[in-house]
């Protein structure tokens, strides 16, 4: 979706604020928000694409004025409600008002190393051969889906070159919408700065994105 998360090429955000000796977390609530997000993610109640979509679908004004872990917190709140695990009334009151819903698994402290080591590999095997090969020229589709997508706006309708072929990976656009993994071939596509940003662009820059096959057509 064309939400506020899709920031590539926007102007006006000012200089980058670099903090020396930055701590991993800036407040205790950030620690808890981080841990809660991971622990709930590991329950299997939703997938990573759903959690990204929950965050990016915050209204743009709210997304851009929320700190990183505020966005995570708001994302988890949406997800637990959508999954039927917590009601809006419970979030508002700060109290559990109903019996818990069934849940696939609860991560215990002793499970944490194994859960983190396993991660969430996205590669899958599919039967179709890859449509594009390294060195091939492709054009990204001009598309503006309502749901989740990993094709940034600045890279739509642009011509680039296939740089890497990664195998088939879970297709986030479908997976975020509960339509299953529907894996597709994944490619790294390299664009010249001029293709993306026009004649005034620095001629020595290139930008690559990782793009699923259905984002691409032959050029």
């Amino acid at each position, binding site marked *: 979706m064309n939400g506020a998360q899709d920031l*590539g090429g926007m102007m006006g955000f000012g200089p980058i604020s670099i903090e020396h000796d930055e701590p991993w977390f800036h407040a205790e609530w950030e620690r808890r928000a981080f841990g809660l997000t991971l622990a709930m993610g590991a329950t299997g109640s939703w997938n990573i694409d759903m959690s990204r979509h929950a965050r990016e679908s915050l209204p743009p004004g709210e997304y851009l004025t929320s700190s990183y872990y505020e966005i995570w917190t708001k994302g988890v709140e949406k997800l*637990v409600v959508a999954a039927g695990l917590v009601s809006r009334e419970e979030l508002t009151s700060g109290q559990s008002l109903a019996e818990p819903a069934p*849940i696939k698994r609860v991560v215990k402290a002793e499970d944490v190393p194994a859960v983190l080591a396993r991660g969430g590999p996205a590669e899958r095997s599919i039967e179709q051969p890859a449509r594009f090969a390294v060195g091939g020229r492709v054009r990204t589709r001009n598309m503006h889906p309502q749901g989740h997508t990993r094709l940034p706006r600045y890279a739509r309708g642009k011509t680039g070159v296939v740089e890497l072929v990664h195998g088939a990976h879970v297709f986030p656009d479908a997976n975020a919408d509960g339509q299953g993994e529907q894996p597709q071939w994944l490619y790294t596509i390299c664009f010249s700065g001029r293709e993306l940003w026009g004649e005034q662009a620095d001629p020595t820059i290139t930008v690559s994105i990782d793009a699923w096959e259905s984002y691409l057509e032959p050029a």
Partner: protein
Amino acid sequence: MGHDHHYDHDDHSHLSEIELRVRALESILVEKGYVDPAAIDALVETYEVKVGPRNGAKVVAKAWSDPAYRDWLRTDATAAIASLGFIGRQGEHMVAVENTPDEHNMVVCTLCSCYPWPVLGLPPVWYKSAPYRSRAVLDPRGVLAEFGVHLPETTRIRVWDSTAEVRYLVIPMRPEGTEGMGEEQLAELVTRDSMIGTGLARQPEAMR
């Protein structure tokens, strides 16, 4: 933002809205038995204590020292990095890109905060911020200058926007004058920012 929380506890009155909100969420999730508070502690502790850019620095130092490892890292970074024990969440599919005198690599996630946790730990705030995410793809040379990195105008800049589960690790150039150094010493020269591409490796003089 329309949040209509009702808290009766006086001892919470000094807490900000987001602190109250996270506390409420945790207490509901714990009360319902969905999360174990000790697991949250373990998750946080992992990234505060055990996982950080020292992991990536070991990878880079090994690549600088061992040509066979470097080749493996360039062709199958996931396996080469896993061989050092750095595996798992947000590092499932790794690609290593190598800086040269002619070409400088830098990494961004314009859509969120994709970052190779097993080798770099959790990302700094600037990496997740709108100024970096918006401008890294449009004006990478200007962004590098803000980090104090001024490259020759002829050096090509390659920006990798991490839009899938593939995570990128930049192998910075090995500083001159480090020929006699072992992997442990070399790793001291490898900074977090040099592995994102917003910095360069430290010069050995800086270590003395």
